[in-house]
């Protein structure tokens, strides 16, 4: 009985009264302390070892089908619809220089698109046209 009272008194000592609200002094739960430590260790590890961003792989080998991509993405918008002549076997009908010149500077109703591509890309388009028949 006496012991119980003592216990009770000790509990009471552990209470503050602020603005009419009682505040106990319970210990921080052990699980929570463990979580705090894990988070702290993780934070230090992340700061030291991680890049902080997703690592983006450098672009794979230069695209081998660039010529085809430009051809289907740009040329065929007109040359497959009947709005402009069919390009099958065009390399037999025109010289390499002339074809590249038409791509760069346009002809009749075809607009100049040279400013959109590098010389290398236009070479690729020509290479593709050689096999397009």
């Amino acid at each position, binding site marked *: 009985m006496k012991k119980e009272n003592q216990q009770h008194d000790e509990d009471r000592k552990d*209470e*503050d009264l*602020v*603005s009419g*609200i*009682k*505040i*106990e*002094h*319970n*210990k*921080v*739960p052990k699980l*929570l302390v463990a*979580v*705090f430590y894990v*988070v*702290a260790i*993780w*934070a230090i590890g*992340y*700061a030291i070892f*991680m*890049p*902080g*961003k*997703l690592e983006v792989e450098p672009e794979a080998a230069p695209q081998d089908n660039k010529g085809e991509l430009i051809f289907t993405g740009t040329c065929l918008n007109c040359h497959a619809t009947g709005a402009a002549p069919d390009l099958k076997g065009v390399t037999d009908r025109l010289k390499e220089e002339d074809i590249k010149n038409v791509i760069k500077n346009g002809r009749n109703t075809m607009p100049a698109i040279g400013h959109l591509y590098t010389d290398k890309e236009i070479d690729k388009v020509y290479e593709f046209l050689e096999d397009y028949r």
Partner: protein
Amino acid sequence: MFTDEKWSSSKNWFIAAVIWIIIGMSMGLLTAAKQIWPDLLNNRWTTYGHIRSAHVMLVIYAWLSMAYVGSMFYMIPKLAKTKIYSEKLGNFSLVFYNIVILEGFFALLDGQTSVIEYGEFPLWVDVQLLIAIVIVAYNLFKTVGQRTEKMLYVSLWYFLGSLLWLPLTWIVGNFPAQWIPSGVQQGLMGWFLGHNAIGLWMTTVGVGQIYYLLPKLTGRPLYSHQLSMIGFWAIATFYVWNGPHHLMNGPIPSWISKAGVIPSIVLLIPVWAVLANFWGTMKGSWAQTRTNVPLRFTMAGTIFYLFACLQGPLQALPSVSSVIKFTHWTVGHAHMGPFGAFSFTSFAAIYYILPKIVGREMFSKKAMEAHFWFSTVGFLVFAFSLWIAGVVQGFAWIEGVPFLQTVLMMEPYVQGRAIGGTMMYVAQFFLAWNMYKTIKVAKQEKKQQALHQAVTA
């Protein structure tokens, strides 16, 4: 001109807040409806961009902030065991604040914006809003200054901290960001405001409210002084660093990126400390939530707070962010803190404080129940639609599904969101009606009492 009546400023801030939640959420509902019928109300004033930013600014700076100020005008004098420094100034600041919000609202509808999320008002409104906030803060600091209770209760730490942090983040986010013309720096400063408006104003005042309400509503002592210390100082230390995680995987230096990720995860410490404290206090009182609606609102708020703060840190990780960024998920997450957690605690604060001010309990308990269930179920429908949508959308983008197809895939989820949103919106009418009735009936009762006294005397 402005009344000096005791508790009048607290009551009036609450009334204004509830009017604004109806206006602000109707903007949100219109936004959701426009995702279903894109041509709905498509005119100069109410295009999608205008309405969406008006919704965000109104629910945060009009509804939630006014509800916060309303509860602080009651809780702070109670905790300081004094009366408010100046009720007149409180009522003046309310009128001024509302004029500024109206200006900002029309500026946004007019198409003026500073393009900073959570800080969309143009500069001329920002300056005035800052003045209004400072007047409120001055009044409340003066109140604490004349306190008769020597110790400061936990809620007061949070309130006073928030009243300092809000103007500071407002200044950093709004002013230099509009003068610095370049992209990344501007984005970082904008997100300093964007995330700290959430973390050092919405969260901290909301947590302060719960610290006040819990012991009062349950009649139980606060669980642990030590946990409140850990929670307060950890959030005050780490929260400011959270802004950069909004630009994750973007063109920011990787050290800034890391400086944003780490504190985001470290936030688990204050969040769990605070929640352990709340739930420790609740031990043995959970059954009360069956009948006590304000307490149920508070506890539902703490649960949503936990879930918001499990999502948040994970979303800050670069790998998770790469899937859910720019998807509907973010919208679901962004509603959980401001609506699920802290609007709920503000509802609880209104239901606890208003009866004490008018001297009569809330008019209808059924309306309170309806308010709770429509809000909760509506929010869950709303949020889960968006979360599922976000994950589907994120992975579809990674798979390279054509964009238009991913838009069509979202149809059922966008509809689900609108249905949930409608329920959340309807819920607020129960609150507004209940408040109106309570205040009106209380006035009548007082009149009758006075009459009765006059007759018997």
